[in-house]
């Protein structure tokens, strides 16, 4: 794939980008489509510029863990599909996929976004376990933000399937009108540093030209629920403070966008 590392770094120093955007501007269009998979209990497709990501929610009934006998569970998984980027190969998840999944997972889990106690049907015996699967359709950069948005949209639009009262089996074909107990809406925003300047929503080329990045997951009251620093260069404490402000502002912006599509 094409790289323009030096030019990107030079432009960044002048607060410019290859595509003419401001450093703190998201690409357009931002498009969110819900219920893109009728086999999932909840699903969404997010488009951020050229990046397209899907998320699907599947629910199952399991025995709760011993130390949390009155709670269900939630887990986020991610696959970087080979069809989304010529660099991705079929096979077990790469470290990039693992990092993506775990960061989105922590953002949702640590915010206690889903009330796990409300997922419990019979303490010690039966509770709902939620798995969110994120898959990439076209990797145009900034998978963290797109994936976080898709995961939240999928959770928000999910419904419980019907449970047969006689034998306890799940009828996936018939959904109830009950939504997941989602009480928080955390969203990750990743801020990149290129040649000393901070920017958001990088293209693939901009990601390759980066010095460092920090993903911040936050809710609308400003509480931070996940942090992940990546990249070969360090951040100063001052930069981290600026990044958190920017991430919180942009997370609020993305939440507003999401609500437009939920209507």
């Amino acid at each position, binding site marked *: 794939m094409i*790289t*323009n590392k030096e*030019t990107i770094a030079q*432009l960044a120093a002048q607060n410019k980008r*290859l595509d003419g955007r401001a450093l703190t501007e998201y690409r357009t269009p931002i498009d969110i489509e819900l219920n893109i998979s009728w086999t999932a209990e909840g699903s969404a497709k997010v488009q951020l510029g050229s990046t397209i990501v899907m998320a699907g929610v599947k629910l199952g009934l399991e025995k709760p863990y011993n130390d949390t006998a009155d709670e269900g569970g939630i887990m986020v998984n991610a696959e970087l599909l080979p069809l989304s980027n010529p660099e991705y190969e079929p096979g077990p998840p790469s470290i990039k996929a693992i990092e993506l999944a775990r960061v989105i997972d922590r953002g949702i889990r640590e915010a206690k976004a889903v009330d796990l106690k409300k997922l419990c049907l019979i303490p010690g015996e039966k509770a709902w376990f939620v798995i969110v699967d994120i898959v990439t359709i076209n990797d145009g950069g900034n998978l963290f933000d797109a994936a976080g948005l898709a995961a939240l949209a999928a959770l928000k639009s999910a419904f419980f399937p019907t449970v047969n009262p006689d034998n306890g089996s799940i009828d996936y074909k018939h959904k109830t009108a009950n939504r997941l107990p989602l009480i928080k809406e955390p969203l990750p925003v990743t801020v990149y540093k290129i040649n000393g300047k901070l920017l958001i929503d990088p293209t693939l080329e901009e990601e390759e030209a980066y010095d460092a990045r920090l993903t911040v997951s936050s809710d609308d009251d400003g509480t931070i629920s996940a942090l992940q620093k990546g990249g070969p260069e360090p951040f100063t404490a001052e930069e981290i403070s600026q990044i958190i402000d920017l991430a919180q502002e942009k997370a609020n912006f993305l939440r507003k966008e999401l609500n437009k599509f939920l209507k």
Partner: protein
Amino acid sequence: MSEILVQERNIVIPGETLAQGMDYLPGDNTYREDDKIYSKILGLVYISGRVIRITPLSGPYVPKIGDKIIARTIDITMSGWRADTETAYSAMLNIKEATSRFIKKEEDLSQIIGIGDYIVVQIINVTSQNMIDLTMREAGLHKITGGRIIKINCQKVPRVIGKQASMIMMIKEKTGCEITVGQNGLIWLKGTSEGELKAEKAIKLIEQKSHLEGLTDKVQKFLEELA
């Protein structure tokens, strides 16, 4: 009885019947079976005399001797540089073909061309297995610094250059950019970043509308509106 079933500039898909009967001849990207001629790709029909050919509207680059291309160095070996051509075939630039000055035995080749550098080169040999040899010694061939590289489908390159280079000259003039077009679809733009972005958008427009007529006017209008 021979019959031609398509018209000039029709868009056809693989397997589409173009003509019937032995009066017509299968040109590029077509094939004959029994007494019919079929298309082998997604493309535009061109008829010259009795020959029907299809110009591809997408598709891979086939390396040819004499082609000027843009490549990116991916490795430095004992004899020179290996470069990625954005195709299935990498290319070799031998030390002797990189520069006309004498290169000493212990010289650090990465000081001449580093890994990751883009180079404007010419193909001097292609083997039957599509292995490519390059030169950088002719005029207009050089290592690239500054500006930006973009990629388009190589089948659109003739439209980006235009008849007698008319299209590319117009874009250069209206954006103030230096532009080098590689036959493999890689293009180097150098100017102000605003000018480069304008040129990039104009080129992407050509890529999108290459099957239409009156393209030069459309692009000119587009560039004038952007100003």
